[in-house]
């Protein structure tokens, strides 16, 4: 098996112009096919971390490698070529609302086609075919020509997933994919994302604030607090002590019990609904 990690982050620091230090030397390696859940309180630097990887946010120092390629050394066209290898899924979906579902999915191909092709919406047939296949995979084929703002939250996130996959990425960056969704839809979306990642052996970093949801779907957890990694290990190692290190003092036993009760109820509701269909 290939020994090079799919993604390697070395000593990443991000200081914003306001002086706020969002990342204070973060190092992390993601193996091929590995799904990493990043948890931590809001403001811990989760968003900044994944945006520093595809350089939507410019890191202050440190290095990021995608396979053997050093992302932090790129600029201009080379950076855009690297970006198309990294798919990104967003918190509030970030679809271009006035474009159709199909155009949104095809926008995942922008890094591969000329401006003229994208301007006239004449994408190569293979791209079109792939887009249709992805829409089938996420279950939205009949919505292809609807405008994105006509869809429900869960459907929009499915379009977001299809757009990211249209890039044929080597890595997925996923920023709070379920924050804007109801609990049941959140679970469905997480399941879909993780299934697809496993099908394609696609490594992924998922920022997620819902610990319980993370525990259900992810095998490895990274805990971020105030810009520093305070926990990195398999899901089983995430005990109360670790959670306290990440989130601070809290009665974790009760939180978990309550969450477990909630989960049982949600699963039940899901089952009932599945039965009704």
């Amino acid at each position, binding site marked *: 098996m290939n020994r090079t990690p799919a993604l390697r982050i070395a000593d990443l620091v991000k200081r914003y112009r306001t002086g706020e230090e969002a990342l204070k030397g973060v190092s992390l390696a993601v193996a091929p096919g590995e799904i990493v859940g990043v948890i931590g309180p809001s403001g811990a630097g989760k968003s900044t971390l994944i945006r520093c990887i595809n350089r939507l946010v410019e890191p202050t120092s440190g290095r990021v490698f995608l396979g053997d390629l050093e992302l932090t050394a790129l600029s201009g066209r080379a950076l855009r070529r690297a970006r198309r290898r990294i798919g990104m899924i967003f918190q509030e979906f970030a679809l271009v609302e006035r474009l159709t579902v199909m155009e949104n999915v095809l926008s995942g191909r922008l890094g591969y086609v000329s401006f003229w092709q994208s301007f*006239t919406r004449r994408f190569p047939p293979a791209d079109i075919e792939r887009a*249709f296949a992805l829409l089938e995979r996420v279950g939205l084929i009949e919505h*292809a020509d609807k405008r994105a703002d006509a869809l429900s939250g869960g459907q929009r996130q499915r379009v977001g997933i299809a757009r990211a996959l249209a890039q044929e990425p080597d890595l997925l960056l996923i920023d709070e994919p379920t924050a804007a969704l109801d609990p049941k839809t959140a679970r469905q979306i997480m399941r879909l994302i993780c299934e697809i990642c496993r099908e394609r052996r696609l490594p992924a970093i998922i920022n997620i604030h819902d610990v319980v949801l993370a525990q259900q779907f992810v095998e490895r957890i990274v805990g971020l607090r105030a810009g520093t990694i305070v926990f990195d290990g398999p899901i089983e190692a995430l005990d109360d002590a670790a959670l306290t290190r990440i989130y601070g003092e809290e009665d974790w036993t009760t939180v978990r019990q309550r969450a477990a009760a909630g989960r049982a109820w949600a699963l039940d509701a899901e089952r009932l609904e599945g039965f009704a269909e």
Partner: protein
Amino acid sequence: MPLARPGDRRSWRHRTPRARLLLWFGWLALVALTVFAWEVMNRDTIWAFVADAPRQAADIGARMVPPRWSYLNELVWPLWETITIATLGTLLAVLLAVPIAFCAARTTTPSFVLIRPLALLVIVGSRSINSLIWGLLLVVVVGPGILAGILAIALRSIGFIGKLLYEAIEEIDLAPVEAVTATGASRLQILDYAIVPQVLPTLVGISVFRWDINIRESTVLGLVGAGGIGLKLEASLNMLAWPQVTTILIVILATVLVSEWVSARIRHAII
């Protein structure tokens, strides 16, 4: 249709053929209309004059510098007049526009049959005629001078303030109105306690905004004899005293910029 399947591969078109045809037709119509309008407009254009324009521009430009700074002394009083026209005109307009707006707003109008259409008519009439044209008319009626200017500014501003205000009144939160009505308040009391507090900041904002526009408009009212610094501009242009024109333009620009700044500051303070 977008979801056609020619052979094995699925094809996708951004627009249906019909939509594409309509789009092209729309663009074609726009181009045709523009070309036609251009042709009609330029029937009597003397292209020799147009070709001569760069030379003319250079000529005027050369005559305009340096500005005649000593002329500034003579501009102080006209400038005061200009500001007075704008300010008093705006005040008068606010006084007249407030009752008209309340008559025009669906939520507060006393009568839908007679008063609301009348109020809307006043607003439309006032809005569609520029203050310079009002000035032209009023100079004939009340004679040249700043009274004509003030009235011109006021007549033009009634429509502007009235329209924005009545739209604001129609968009207020109805829950407080309901609550105050439920206390047994009279119509005027409802106005005072539930409606006015909601629209007052808007009214101040609109008035200050209009005042800023009015400063700009009152600088040119003098061109038709309605007082202010525009009179000096007209006189200087007629005498071809270009250095004076430059001085006046600088003063106008400075006034406009300052009034814009003041109005932005006040509106910022309200919000």
